[in-house]
């Protein structure tokens, strides 16, 4: 894909200021080839559990085809509120503090647009989900990257945060369990950064879409810490835990004023999330938690397999505490992550995502999703092992 440097007068400056996703570029390359084992997929390999699909059919049969309330079906908000409170000790009022969105992606956009003025600086803790910085730019904000390090297990430190803060800083964006590193932050570690956040009176966008997929310790949200609830927007959704990526259903938990502000934007742009999807989500929360548990157990087994196997073939990899990604270092091959991923794809037909597309700190790593079958994982280990034998220096 050729990037034109010439300014196109038809297009807005903000859209021209952002680059197309590096993931997209890699997808274009991979999609021209056959018989690929893909570790490049950031979504579950499970199909949405049958009862959830069935609930969506049934909602259509019963004629629930009209708009819902802008903030989402009240019934669904009540279930979300109950679920988040029971599962993660995050009690929020379904009437005024929960907003159902078109995927967690819309939720992130809403939060940024509701909180960021042009010129405001937003700290983006990287490597992380590819959309954060562009969404900030589209809102006129200035993304400030803070690159976490492998030595710190890809967790952001108070010192790193402190160093990135200026008088213009408004918001900090974090994502734990993290895409792409699988890093999780403990209560104690979050506590340390929360002091810095409070000292500088900043807001936090905490993307917790992978919260259910926490393996060693149960998930702890930064919003639970003293005086943090009022300055935090928690982002979550149904995609990852309930295997519902294509349904595009997310939600936010935020204090009343921020929720009202996000709702304003949401009602003028999306109106409401898709109605059948909301009925599916309702069923997922009411009767789907056993499925979540089974899926999480399966991811955990595959994670254990991948971490041990990568160690055996000489691919250094920290143990991811959550999500479904391993983020091994490829530094001892001498290639940068883009070259590595491309060569691996061409020579061994294994698709991984180069770490640099996830921002600062991602270079020298690749993202390998283990949300694929054990057979694929076993074969991919054989192929990557063969590849490393040829290319390790």
């Amino acid at each position, binding site marked *: 894909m050729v990037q034109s440097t010439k300014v196109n007068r038809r297009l807005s400056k903000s859209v021209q200021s952002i680059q197309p996703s590096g*993931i997209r570029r890699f*997808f274009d390359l991979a999609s021209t080839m056959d018989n690929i084992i893909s570790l490049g997929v*950031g*979504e579950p390999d499970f*199909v949405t559990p049958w009862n959830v699909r069935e609930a969506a059919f049934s909602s259509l049969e019963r004629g629930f085809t009209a708009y819902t309330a802008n903030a989402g079906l009240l019934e669904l908000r009540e279930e979300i509120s109950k679920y988040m409170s029971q599962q993660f000790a995050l009690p929020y009022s379904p009437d005024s503090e929960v907003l159902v969105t078109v995927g967690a992606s819309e939720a992130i956009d809403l939060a940024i647009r509701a909180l960021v003025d042009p010129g405001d600086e937003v700290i983006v803790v990287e490597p992380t989900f590819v959309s954060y910085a562009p969404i900030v730019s589209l809102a006129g904000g200035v993304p400030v990257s803070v690159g976490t390090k492998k030595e710190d297990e890809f967790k952001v430190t108070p010192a790193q945060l402190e160093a990135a803060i200026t008088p213009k800083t408004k918001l900090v964006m974090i994502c734990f369990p993290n895409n792409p590193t699988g890093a999780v932050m403990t209560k104690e570690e979050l506590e340390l950064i929360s002091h810095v956040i409070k000292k500088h009176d900043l807001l936090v966008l905490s993307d917790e879409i992978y919260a259910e997929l926490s393996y060693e310790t149960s998930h702890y949200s930064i919003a639970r810490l003293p005086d943090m609830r009022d300055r935090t927007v928690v982002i979550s959704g149904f995609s990852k835990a309930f295997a519902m990526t294509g349904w595009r259903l997310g939600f936010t938990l935020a204090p009343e004023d921020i929720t009202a502000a996000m709702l304003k934007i949401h009602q003028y742009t999306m109106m409401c999330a898709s109605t059948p999807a909301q009925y599916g989500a309702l069923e997922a929360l009411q009767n789907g938690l056993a499925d979540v548990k089974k899926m999480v157990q399966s991811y955990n*087994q595959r994670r*254990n397999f991948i971490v041990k196997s990568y160690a055996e073939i000489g691919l250094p990899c920290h143990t991811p505490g959550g999500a479904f990604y391993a983020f091994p270092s490829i530094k001892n091959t001498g290639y940068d992550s883009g070259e590595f991923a491309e060569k691996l794809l061409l020579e061994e037909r294994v*698709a991984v995502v180069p770490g640099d597309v996830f921002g600062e700190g991602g270079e020298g790593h690749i993202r390998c999703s283990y949300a694929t079958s*054990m057979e694929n994982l076993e074969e991919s280990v054989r192929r990557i092992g063969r590849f490393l034998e040829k290319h390790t220096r």
Partner: protein
Amino acid sequence: MGVNSKEIEVLQIIEENGRVSLNTLAKMVELSEEQVEGILKKLEKEKVILSYSAVIDWSKVYDQENVTAMIDVKVTPQRGVGFDDIAKRIYRFPEVKALYLMSGAYDLSVVIEGKSMSQIARFVSDKLSTLDSVISTTTHFQLKKYKHDGVVFEDGEEDRRIVVTP
């Protein structure tokens, strides 16, 4: 018997895929190969694991397709042993693939596999019905197999995800 959570995890994995290698299984449950082998040996010995089998769609193999019938059998239970003796007499026939004691309209559910309908008919009339305590039989032939032992035959739920996503 007491089974710990690691052992249950092992059982769940091999129930889904009995062919998983010891090495892979050990990594998945974070134990050594020797430990997993020990667990399997123990569970085999305790007859928790009875056998390792494959679910095969014989209809795809030329000339190998069998006819399966489920036969509802009413029997007279015997003093002292109830249904156990008659059950034993029935399950020893090699044609019998499964046998269950049922509640409700009949007593035993017998699953028979044969080369043809007439072979099954012969089994029912010659062998099953002639047993002393058998009062009646009702034979149902299976027409098509959709799901067996938790495995869906030809469900078409292949991976529909694109190769690289965020």
